[in-house]
């Protein structure tokens, strides 16, 4: 039971990765398998495909906006909830609630809210913030930012929970010592708490980074590729290439690029938590 299950996981991950790598180097770009070796041709073609270059840019823009929102909102809310708040559990429950909801349902709700001619735009109009009105995912220039807002709605509460656990893990004596030394609340967070929870920021960045890299459900539910591929992602491109156009080798090449990015994120992370694993 143990050896077979461990073996299954290792095969399903690593043998499959190797096989994907192999497929990316052959010419299986049709419905029938074709294992003719073509070297890096699929990768060469990929990097000359405008859609893929847009996808890479989208992933970069998405991760910057997504991480900024999650880490910013997460840290602020965690610090606020750390102020001996009456009804803390109530607020915390609401903040983390979106994390229990699937990205598909999240997409349905935000697609409605970000309707180019209503939804949030109505709210901005009502409170006099008209300059914030825009066409959201229907605007090719900011479509992916609209997606990041919906994604951050889901994950910022999660980030808050990570930060709050970090803040609660700081020994009470440190806080008391800071107060006795005359540190204000702001100084306590600025000079003691936030530096101490740097590992949380690091962990959150890795987790949110891998989410950015894998972004698929939300664009699928909200917009698909969007206007001029404004909300397209490598994951969505891979899915369409492989399972709708049956260009398996081309899809495998996208998968390999995504794996390389993922390994680039995870290896440093694992090296940093290695001691914790090995205790």
């Amino acid at each position, binding site marked *: 039971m143990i050896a077979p299950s461990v073996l299954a996981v290792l095969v399903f991950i690593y043998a499959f990765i190797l096989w994907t790598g192999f497929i990316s180097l052959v010419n299986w770009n049709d419905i029938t398998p074709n294992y003719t070796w073509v070297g890096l041709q699929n990768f060469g073609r990929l990097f000359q495909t405008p859609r893929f270059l847009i996808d890479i840019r989208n992933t970069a823009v998405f991760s910057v906006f997504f991480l900024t929102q999650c880490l910013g909102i997460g840290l*602020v809310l965690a610090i*606020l909830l750390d102020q001996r708040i009456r009804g803390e559990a109530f*607020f915390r*429950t609401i903040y983390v609630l979106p994390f229990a*909801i699937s990205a598909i349902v999240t997409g349905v*709700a935000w697609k*409605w809210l970000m309707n180019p001619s209503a939804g949030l735009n109505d709210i901005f109009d009502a409170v006099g913030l008209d300059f914030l009105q825009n066409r959201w995912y229907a605007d090719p220039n900011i479509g992916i930012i609209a997606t990041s807002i919906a994604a951050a*709605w889901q994950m910022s509460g999660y980030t808050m929970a990570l930060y709050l*656990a970090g803040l609660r893990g700081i020994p009470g004596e440190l806080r008391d010592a800071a107060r006795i030394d005359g540190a204000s609340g702001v100084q306590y967070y600025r000079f003691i708490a936030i530096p101490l929870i740097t590992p949380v920021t690091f962990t959150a960045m890795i987790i949110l980074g891998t989410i950015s890299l894998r972004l698929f459900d939300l664009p699928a539910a909200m917009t698909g590729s969007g206007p001029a591929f404004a909300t397209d992602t490598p994951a969505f491109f891979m899915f369409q290439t492989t399972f709708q156009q049956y260009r398996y080798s081309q899809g495998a090449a996208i998968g390999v690029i995504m794996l390389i990015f993922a390994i680039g994120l995870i290896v440093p992370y694992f090296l940093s938590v290695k001691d914790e694993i090995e205790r």
Partner: protein
Amino acid sequence: MSLAMRHTGRVVLYGVLIFFAAYYLLPVYMLVLTAFKPFDRVSVDQMWNLPTSVYLESWTRAWPLVAPNFWNSVLITVPAALISSFIGSLNGYVFAKWKFRYSNLIFMLILFGIFLPYQGILIPLVQVLTFVHLYGSIPGLILVHCVFGMPITALIFRSYFVTIPRDMLDAGRIDGAGFFGIYWWIMLPIAAPAFAVALIWQFTNIWNDFLLGVVVLSNPSLAPMTVAINNITGTFSIEWNLQMAAAILAAAPTVLVYLLLGRLFMRGLLAGALKG
């Protein structure tokens, strides 16, 4: 700091907290609001208007539309969550208490599965499932969720079992219990909290999964709820109020579990982050 200033500070503090509560509840409010309106009142220009009367027909019409997929999701999620938690408990026990050569390395290799972009393995996955005649079937998707759920469940159980003192194992060994004896008589009975955390986590993840479902089980009559919702909301032929009601039905099980068992849910959430 004067008392008045402190008072103002508290008011601002609660104001910000309430503002963010509204931000998190707004999309949920929008879904519920729309689902209780008849179709002639859900147009874009009256999006924010409250319903004039509580309209329940969206629900009675949405449910038959997605009920088969709802039950598919139950059929997929419940066994997959149970099996992956059970296997995770065994593996967590091994990696916590029975160190062997390269066990830490193998554990890390397994953990990579938590962060793996599935696009890197989907093609071989489909090939293998087709080869063993499980592609496009519910058991096939259960198998996939069991395998890819194992990294996180092994992590949850391992983190729990490392806190169990060695003495308890040694006591078991003196009493003549072996590898499985110790697992069965000593570890399993005290692992209830870890089981609850793993089960809730797996239930939520598998219920909410879309990618594996749409790849392995895209046949509309067998597809899980997330795939059905995506199909429904992608067509213009189905009324918005029905789409929203169906979306709420899709979210209800995991939201209920979260609201009822929030503390255990949070523990799973923190377990996924190795450090923090």
